């Protein structure tokens, strides 16, 4: 049984254009289905506005989707704010990109890491102190840093402290939204290694949201590529990035600057990602797609499963012309 399941989830927000404009329904995510297995990582990649973060919030039950179902541990996700949801929250934690914004600047690191234990009534005062000390060691912080305030730590150390806090309640699911994007390369590698070690030691499942394909490939057991609120390709990270099938994934992979000689020719897409409030008909990617056919302008492609188990939402996924393209 999967730890987390999303089935055909859609989230519709209403916005207005201008002060007196007509309300417009924006489908931030649409037709989203995936599973996260216990102890495994699902990576979600995509550009700004593709619905990655909304997906993370739905996965945590912070938002109730407009359509579809979310189950956690086999039971339906309770509504946010209810007592059941609150008690479930100790099993699900969230880590954001900006650790300084996620911390209280007036509290010491130890006090912040202890907070979830107090909220969920875990242990006595003395037990909590021991647990906090152990958590700080687990994430690679020194004991003397427990008494520091957030501004006294470097960006990498702050992100470690945020992780210690997220791990305090021993969660079975961690949603990480761009957790290493703000860190320098050498520190990023330390935190990525730590995340994989913690996962191996504690069996935590992760939803790892990032725009950085290299980092996602490194940490994920399965990867979903999103474009304008829908999954366009999903599968094993090594296979998917070695031989992307969807034209969007191909462009994304080819656009990654690699140190050293370029192995694949770069595909430069024209135009910007469209506004989710003004979604093109048919396949949302067709205005920027170099290989679009007539059907792409009218029919939304369904996710279909290929021989290697990968799922792709493209009319041309099975056609021989995609190889030539």
């Amino acid at each position, binding site marked *: 049984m999967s730890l987390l399941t999303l089935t055909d989830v859609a989230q519709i927000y209403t916005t207005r254009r201008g002060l007196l404009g007509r309300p417009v329904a924006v489908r931030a995510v649409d037709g989203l289905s995936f599973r996260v297995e216990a102890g495994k990582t699902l990576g979600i990649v995509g550009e700004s506005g593709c619905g990655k973060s909304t997906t993370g919030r739905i996965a945590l039950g912070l938002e109730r989707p407009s359509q579809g179902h979310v189950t956690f541990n086999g039971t339906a996700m309770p509504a946010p704010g209810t007592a059941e949801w609150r008690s479930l929250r100790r099993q699900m934690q969230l880590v954001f990109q900006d650790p300084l914004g996620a911390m209280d600047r007036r509290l010491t690191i130890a006090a912040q890491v202890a907070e979830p234990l107090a909220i969920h009534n875990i242990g006595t005062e003395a037990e909590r102190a021991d647990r906090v000390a152990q958590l700080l060691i687990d994430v690679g912080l020194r004991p003397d840093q427990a008494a520091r305030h957030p501004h006294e730590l470097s960006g990498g150390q702050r992100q470690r402290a945020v992780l210690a806090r997220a791990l305090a309640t021993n969660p079975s699911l961690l949603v990480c939204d761009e957790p290493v994007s703000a860190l320098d390369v050498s520190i990023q*590698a330390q935190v990525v290694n730590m995340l994989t070690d913690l996962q191996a030691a504690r069996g935590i499942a992760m939803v790892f949201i990032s725009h950085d394909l290299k980092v996602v490939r490194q940490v994920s057991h399965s990867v979903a590529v999103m474009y304008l609120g829908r999954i366009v390709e999903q599968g094993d990270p090594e296979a998917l990035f070695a031989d992307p099938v969807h034209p969007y994934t191909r462009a*994304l992979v080819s656009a990654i600057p690699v*140190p050293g000689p370029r192995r694949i020719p770069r595909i430069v897409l024209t135009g910007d990602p469209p506004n989710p409030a003004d979604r093109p008909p048919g396949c949302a990617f067709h205005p920027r797609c170099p290989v679009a056919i007539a059907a792409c302008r009218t029919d939304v492609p369904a996710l279909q499963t290929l021989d290697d188990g990968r799922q792709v939402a493209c009319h041309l996924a099975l056609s021989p012309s995609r190889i030539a393209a």
Partner: protein
Amino acid sequence: MNPLIHLQNLEVTFQGTPALRGVDLSVGAGEAVGLVGESGSGKSVTWLAALGLLPPTASVTGRVMLGADNLLGAPPATLDRVRGGRIAMIFQDPASALNPVQRVGKQVMEALGLHRGLTGAAARAEAKRLFELVGIPDSGRRLDVYPHEMSGGQNQRVMIAMALAGEPELLVADEPTTALDATIQAQILDLLRRLQREMGMALVLISHDLGVVADMCTRVCVMYAGRIVEQAPSETLFASPAHPYTQGLLAALPDMVGPRRRLAAIPGAVPEPWNLPPGCAFAPRCPRADATCAVQPAFRTLADGHAAACVHATVRERIFA
């Protein structure tokens, strides 16, 4: 060949704290040079100092030779002609560099007036031509929109158009694509590469992303704690990095091909500028550090165009994939 610009022993301190500790760097006409390093390594400060853009609290010493003129201590009138004229700079966040309450076309026309004396219809026609040059579709109408009506990628194109207004010999691009999405980053890098080639303009690309620099530049300088620690032609640097820090940076990057391996993280963190170790600043994190590293290593030439500031640096093939 005489370099276009030559920074000589450039040092910057902010109220006694060293930010730049002796940078020597020259850029030839039409050359594309990359400057990589992590936060606080001094890559942006180098060029802000060279162009006299640092606040008065910074003390800057050394020389910045543009032809026969030293820009350091040059009168404001000279600097005003150079900045935006001979040397233009673009930054990471175009939205905050543009005036939010002025139409983008007007902002480009202002630069045209300052540096080329164009006004009225001539300035508007030239602004339209620049918009076309940088790939802004429907350029005539886009002159009249405000920055918030455009995407981040389009705003960066406006910034590039504005930088090109003075027909500069050198464009300094400070993290020009860091705030942009992957597919938009590819577009902007493509544009910069095309402009550099077609206009014969020199380019200095400041980036934390080794991949971006590898893609764009013929020569790369790696900075650490206020110094250039390695300099080499792009292919040499990525095929056989000599400085342990450069080797560490490349090993810390996840691969896009082949089996996944555990990342080789560089232990520790960048030293605080007010608490630099004596001798080599990288020594406390370096696997090859020994007693000889207690003295500041000289910048030695290892091969043609390849130099590193490390006593242990040797030219050899990379040991890791």
